[in-house]
């Protein structure tokens, strides 16, 4: 999909840069420190951006390249940085992501890391070092996120005799989603490796001591075993190219099942069926009754929202899941947009809408908020569904914004939003429906006290 019309400039982008996604993914590994090989500003900007969502410290190290390194290469700084991080943080893993600077000057990171290991590794307590190529000019934060996971799996996982665990690659979901997912797997009684898992590292408790590295994250031992799992469930319908899941299949023949993000009823049904089959047990009562209550609630609320018209934007897989859910509850997604450009969003949306009697919305990849607003100006909208960055658009249109995903910069608790599963769908449903009710109530001259 191309932009419509084809503007050259970008205004208010609907995407973030690649190393940010990699940093988040690395943050979801136990004992890991994300490390950007580039100029100091990248790490600082991204930290600030991530902090404003999670309200949690996130230390991202940097090789802090200066002018001379651009000329002579960043090797020395990268090594010094790794050494310093190792000394101060005593990490189990350092996740090195490149930036456009180091990619452009042509640093051979793999080689530098090999040298570094030769030079500095003592054999005792040396951190693992993973590297991933993430120049900002070749993809969005989602590509960076997925690339980091792929890198981790390729560089860490081992094959061997199959065990009884499954791998879950849940995609870029919230900390609350991850907690929910882990509880769900526990309720199924199934041993699973969820990668990444920043549910604690980016949503931690109040502490007495500043943590060198926050506790939590996917254990390295589990990641090593991912090559021996009996199944990988990878959430996402818009992948293009190799992923952690496909590499686990290719390198270690771990069977791969791809499902969408479990958002809404049908996508959750699919996910639950896969998990249930893998676990060899029925879906537990807790989830069946949650589904029953969800359907009951959808019926209770359906009239308030029928036919409302929504724009959905954000990461492609999130947009696909949310679009499916909106259609399930009778809201018309009229425009689905992303700054990403996998090329797969339209087809994925067509797939998840099948059988719902919902007209196909306009689907646009590789767009910014200027495009979205321009396109939406004659669409007669009732609500926006997406992250905080749509606020000014929503404000101008005088329609509500349902905040989901990342980033949430103008509310607290973005990391605590639950999107997935029947419980997440319930929360989304209540939020959306009540937002529409509230607007009707507040806009009315009457001020009905029953709705």
């Amino acid at each position, binding site marked *: 999909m191309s932009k419509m019309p084809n503007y050259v400039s970008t205004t208010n982008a609907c995407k973030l840069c690649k190393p940010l996604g990699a940093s988040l993914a690395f943050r979801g590994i136990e004992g890991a420190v994300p490390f950007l090989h580039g100029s100091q500003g990248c790490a600082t900007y991204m930290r600030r951006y991530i902090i404003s969502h999670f309200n949690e410290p996130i230390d991202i190290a940097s090789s802090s390249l200066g002018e001379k390194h651009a000329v002579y290469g960043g090797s020395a700084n990268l090594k010094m940085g790794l050494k310093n991080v190792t000394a101060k943080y005593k990490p189990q893993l350092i996740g090195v992501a490149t930036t*456009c600077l180091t990619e452009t000057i042509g640093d051979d990171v793999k080689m530098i890391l090999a040298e570094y290991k030769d030079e500095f590794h003592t054999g005792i307590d040396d951190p693992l070092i993973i590297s991933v190529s993430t120049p900002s000019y070749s993809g969005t934060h989602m590509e960076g996120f997925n690339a980091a996971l792929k890198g981790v799996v390729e560089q860490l996982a081992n094959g061997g005799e199959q065990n009884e665990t499954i791998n879950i690659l849940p995609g870029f979901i919230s900390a609350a989603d991850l907690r929910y997912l882990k509880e769900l797997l526990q309720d199924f009684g199934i041993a699973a490796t969820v990668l990444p898992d920043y549910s604690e590292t980016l949503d931690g408790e109040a502490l007495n001591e500043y943590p060198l590295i926050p506790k939590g994250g996917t254990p390295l031992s589990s990641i090593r075993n991912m090559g021996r799992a009996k199944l990988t469930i990878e959430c996402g319908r818009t992948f293009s190219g190799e992923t952690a899941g496909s590499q686990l299949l290719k390198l270690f023949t771990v069977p791969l099942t791809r499902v969408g993000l479990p958002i809404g009823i049908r996508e959750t049904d699919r996910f639950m069926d896969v998990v249930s089959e893998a676990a060899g047990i029925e879906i537990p009562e807790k989830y069946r009754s949650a589904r029953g209550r969800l359907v009951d609630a959808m019926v209770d609320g359906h009239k308030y929202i029928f036919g409302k018209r929504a724009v959905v934007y954000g990461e492609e897989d999130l947009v696909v899941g949310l679009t499916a859910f909106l259609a399930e509850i009778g809201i018309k997604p009229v425009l689905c947009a992303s700054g990403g450009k996998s090329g797969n969003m339209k087809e994925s949306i067509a797939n998840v809408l099948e059988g719902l009697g919902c007209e196909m919305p306009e689907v646009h990849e590789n767009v910014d908020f200027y495009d979205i607003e321009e396109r939406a100006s004659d669409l007669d909208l009732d609500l926006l569904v997406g992250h905080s960055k749509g606020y*000014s658009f929503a404000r101008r249109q005088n329609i509500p914004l349902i905040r989901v995903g990342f980033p949430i910069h103008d509310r607290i608790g973005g990391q605590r939003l639950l999107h997935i599963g029947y419980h997440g769908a319930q929360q989304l449903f209540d939020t959306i429906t009540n937002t529409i009710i509230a607007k009707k109530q507040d806009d009315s001259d009457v001020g009905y006290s029953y709705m």
Partner: protein
Amino acid sequence: MEPLHVLKEREPQIHRKGEAPFSIECNKDSLAGAVSQRACVFCGSRVVLYPIADALHLVHGPIGCAVYTWDIRGALSSGPELHRLSFSTDLQEIDVIFGGEKKLYKALIELIDRHQPKAAFVYSTCIVGLIGDDMEAVCKQVEKEKSIPVLPVMSEGFKGNKRAGYEAACSAMTRLVGTGDISGISKHSINILGDFNLAGEIWLIREYFNRIGVEVVANITGDGRIEDIKRSHGAALNVVQCSGATMDLATMMKKRFGIPNIRVSYFGVEDMAEALYEVARFFKDDEMLEKARELVRMELSTLLPELQKYKTALAGKKAAIYVGGAFKAFSLVKAFRLIGMKVVMVGSQTGTREDYEELEEITDEGTIIIDDANPLELSAIIREKDVDIFVGGVKERPIAYKLGVAFCDHNHERKEMLAGFHGMLNFAREVYGSVMSPVWQFVPRRVSEEKE
């Protein structure tokens, strides 16, 4: 108490007043791997130029640099709000290979046609220099075609630190200064440099100056306008706030136009009063000085009684300060003193040796003075000094919060007016509203204290 985790290389950048003769290293590159709180050259340029509200600010580079600086600051405009949009050429792999000049040209034309700005700033980012785009040439071309100033800002991120970005920004503005009509400007006129109109502060400061009979020619850059900057060389004096952000511009204006400058701060009552007095003294106008005194008297007569309530509650509480420029730190030290609080740590990202010397002078024994700190150091100091409130920017906030320490945002994202006399009251209120929150009694730090 666990010891302060300090890398050996970092030790010279930390000083404890009273423990040794004063010595501190500063203005060094950040140490690789140290998780500095610093940003980059690009950031410095954006900080300075961002509030110019009727200019187009186009970031030439990959998307990150633009998107992380989209509408992130509390810098208000009384008119156009072009500065709140995030423009980028969003360079792609193909541009990196074949060069981005054409894309930059087209983007500029497109955006200027769309928004009709009074000028355009074009920011270079890390890779722009590397791929060899001739930004200067493209800008010149567009300037000619569109008949507005199109100003390259040479802000490749890696070419130094934030301070270098200030210079790049000032150097871009330099091209504007001196191009406007300066007829009709009062002899008692100034430019305000280094105030970014966070939460509308420059409006308050301008009002003060108006009240003592001073005309403000240009805001540089809070609520800034291209036309004002063009004629800013018509002012009699440059009044410069903040350690370094706009000092280069003032220096250039002194050199080129002979405009003298003074450095001031609008934070805290002493500094605010002194800023007015200094301007009045500069103009050697007794009436103006008397007006300034009257203004200060009036403001203080309402402010001080109101402050008392907060002072009573906050007396003896301990503050730590870590800000971008050291000049703000001076004012904060004094401001905390005014509300009865003790400053136990003060540091900055970009202080100079002179700055730190002055901090050494005005702080109490035992105060830690620190340059270019990182989270681990900051958190260790917080715990060692049992700090009640931390003053810093958004990047410092989670460190304070994670450890159960109150926080005051004194950086560009804030929504509270902290300058001037009214700002002092807001400051006290904000400190009070954080320090006195009941939530602290639930944080582990306080719970474990109670158990001790």
